[in-house]
């Protein structure tokens, strides 16, 4: 067989929201790369000062050589009517901060006064990430009650929820006074993106198990037992995620590119393998089989998501038959054959699932990519104003093929606007024809503004410099910058209209969450969803001996 001509997949197809909204966790995901990076660090619970109801302070840390990271947890009582996952909440069951180093007594006192207040508190450059979480009351209370009576909780109930707590926000990179990224970016252990956010969530998970055990023991010291480790391992941390993530991926174009590029590069390299070892194929098959446990326990009330899950399930049935009957390691370029078949026969949800699974046998391909997934946006901020208008025209025509064809004179094309809410400083989206505030629209209507730029560019003298063009057109400067970025980073732009009437914002969230490594996407509307992180992950004391396929250890 001749060597097939395998290219990178076309950004015009991959960067459509419907495709990005079909991405799944993979070996590239940040939860998994966090565990790989930190598995040989020393884990310690250095303080656990909770009262009998589970309220108080606890500290967990990871240390190696002279470096330590400490999670400080503050658990408090809240009334049921105060418990809300929405960003409008002002109190949470627990609040967390990841401190750089070992906190002093003064640090703990300062943080105790501020961290539970979250957005209205202030932290310092010595803190790295900040978060809060609420109990899943039915799972948590059931676990406490059962354990205090000397029984393990009902696995069925816990599996249905999947976690004891869910976080409602995880902040980093300078928010609320947290350390700016530039202070820590040269530390080798955090080269991968969102690594400290992933650390925070991982340690929060351990806190939830320790807290549930502690309360059960306090309730009934003679009879209480500890949560079975197999049950604990099967629990992750939930998360409620809203629109805040959507502008993030628009505002970090080179970061977005690096994520997608690494995924695409991995796929291209795997498809280009001429020979496949039988162990590699078996490893792939094994992961695929085990992963179905997670798919089968993926429940949601969302019709949109259920359609996608059904598409995934029926696609996998077809795929299994193909794999069984048509694939053998004797065939050259087997992965390319598998991918090509999947592309021609499966819908996006299942196709991207197979792409994720194909990475599993290949540490040697994936590991070198992990450290290329961060980006320094500022390095690409300056507009190359010495270039000519014809350069820009060419970039627009090459990189925004479908966007420059959109007719923005229709109501549907202009339907939504993105704005920042005054009371919570959080991104929102609304209909410009039904709500007020469109005059304060955020610069997230990239497709519309690119089209506007294109219409101006084609009328401009083509040999003029971009500097000359900007003197007369500074209202579209923000998209001139983007166009020059996309020229160098082809996967940096969503190739869809983010203000159109058919926009499904959760597709943007799912893209980001899949790179985090989240599973069990459970949309609660078209604007927010719940997910699970670290389900099946090794417990803190098991990290050193864990393997990377823990994500497939989930049992029903």
């Amino acid at each position, binding site marked *: 067989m001749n060597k097939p001509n395998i290219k990178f997949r076309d950004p015009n197809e991959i960067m459509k929201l419907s495709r990005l909204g079909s991405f799944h966790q993979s070996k590239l995901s940040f939860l998994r790369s966090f565990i790989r990076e930190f598995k040989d660090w020393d884990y310690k619970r250095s303080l656990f000062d909770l009262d009998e109801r589970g309220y108080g302070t606890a500290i967990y840390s990871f240390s190696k050589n002279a470096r330590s990271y400490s999670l400080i947890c503050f658990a408090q009582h809240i009334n049921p009517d105060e418990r809300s996952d929405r960003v409008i909440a002002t109190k949470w069951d627990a609040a967390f901060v990841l401190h750089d180093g070992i906190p002093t007594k003064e640090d703990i006192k300062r943080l105790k006064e501020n961290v539970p207040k979250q957005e209205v508190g202030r932290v*310092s450059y010595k803190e790295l990430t900040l978060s809060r979480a609420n109990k899943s009351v039915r799972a948590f209370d059931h676990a406490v009650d059962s354990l205090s009576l000397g029984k393990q909780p009902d696995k069925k109930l816990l599996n249905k929820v999947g976690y004891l707590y869910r976080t409602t926000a995880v902040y980093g990179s300078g928010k609320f*006074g947290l350390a700016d990224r530039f202070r820590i970016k040269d530390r080798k252990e955090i080269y991968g993106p969102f690594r400290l956010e992933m650390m925070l969530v991982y340690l929060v998970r351990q806190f939830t198990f320790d807290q549930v055990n502690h309360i059960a023991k306090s309730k009934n010291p003679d009879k209480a037992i500890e949560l079975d480790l197999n049950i604990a391992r099967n629990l992750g941390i939930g998360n409620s995620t809203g629109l805040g993530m959507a502008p993030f991926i628009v505002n970090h174009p080179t970061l977005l590119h690096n994520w997608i590029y690494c995924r695409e590069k991995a796929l291209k390299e795997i498809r280009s393998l001429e020979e496949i070892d039988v162990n590699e194929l078996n490893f792939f098959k094994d992961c695929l089989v085990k992963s179905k446990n997670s798919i089968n326990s993926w429940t949601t009330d969302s019709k949109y998501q259920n359609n996608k899950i059904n598409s995934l399930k029926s696609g996998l049935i077809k795929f299994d038959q193909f794999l069984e009957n048509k694939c053998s390691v004797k065939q050259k370029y087997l992965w390319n054959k598998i991918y090509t078949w999947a592309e021609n026969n499966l819908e996006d949800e299942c196709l991207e699932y197979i792409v994720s699974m194909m990475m599993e046998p290949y540490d040697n391909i994936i590991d070198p990519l992990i450290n290329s997934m961060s980006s320094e946006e500022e390095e690409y901020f*300056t507009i190359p104003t010495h270039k000519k208008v014809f350069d820009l025209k060419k970039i627009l025509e090459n990189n925004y093929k479908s966007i420059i064809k959109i007719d923005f004179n229709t109501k549907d094309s202009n339907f939504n606007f993105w704005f920042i809410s005054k009371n919570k400083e959080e991104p929102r989206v609304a209909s410009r024809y039904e709500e007020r505030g469109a005059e304060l629209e955020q610069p997230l209507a990239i497709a519309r503004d690119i089209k506007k730029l294109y219409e101006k560019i084609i009328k401009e003298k083509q040999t003029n410099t971009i500097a000359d063009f900007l*003197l007369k057109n500074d209202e579209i*400067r923000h998209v001139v*910058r983007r166009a020059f970025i996309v020229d160098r980073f082809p996967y940096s732009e969503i190739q869809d209209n983010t203000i159109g009437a058919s926009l499904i914002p959760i597709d943007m969230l799912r893209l980001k969450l899949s790179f985090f490594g989240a599973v069990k996407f459970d949309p609660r509307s078209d604007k927010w969803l719940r997910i699970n992180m670290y389900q099946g992950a090794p417990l803190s004391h098991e990290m050193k001996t864990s393997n990377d396929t823990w994500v497939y250890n989930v049992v029903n």
Partner: protein
Amino acid sequence: MQSLSEIDTTTKRASKASGFSWGVAEEIGKAIRNLELFGLPGIKNLNLYLNKIEKNHPKKVNKIDKENKYKELCPIYCGVAFLDQCQKLEALKKIKFYNVNYPILILPFISKASEIIGKKILMQFNKSSFLINFNKSIFSKNLEKQVIASVDEINIEFLENKNSFSDQEWTELYKLSEKTFVEENDSLKTKGAGAGLTDND
């Protein structure tokens, strides 16, 4: 203490709210962040300037020439235009701006331009001078006030890349560095670099 990320975001939003386009507001966010990083009073000056233009948004700047006379010059439009045109402006060697409001605000744009063209730039107004080093640092001299509402004249000079020391000073230092070298005898000359005995092969 506010993080640089907060300074960037809030500055960008405040600038947009004051009538600048999103693209220019993005530039202002990065500019003020850099000024504060260099220890110069960016937020202080920007706040006062945005107050000043609240009811009367400044005029944009056209092409920059050797002498730029306006009744009042906006340091932001002026800075952004300078940045955009810096590769052409370098040929002018010296540039003058007249009647510039809040001149400290122009500094970060000149600083970025210094990085782009790879030359140090000297900026002077009143008795103050600023040596701008490739956007890595700004060395200021005689900056008496944290806030300067306006100046009659700003002088900008592109500095040629040349040494800040004499040939004699360099020779002196070089001689000292030679003390780390080993004097080669005949044996070391033939064996030290691992070369063959002849290259006529």
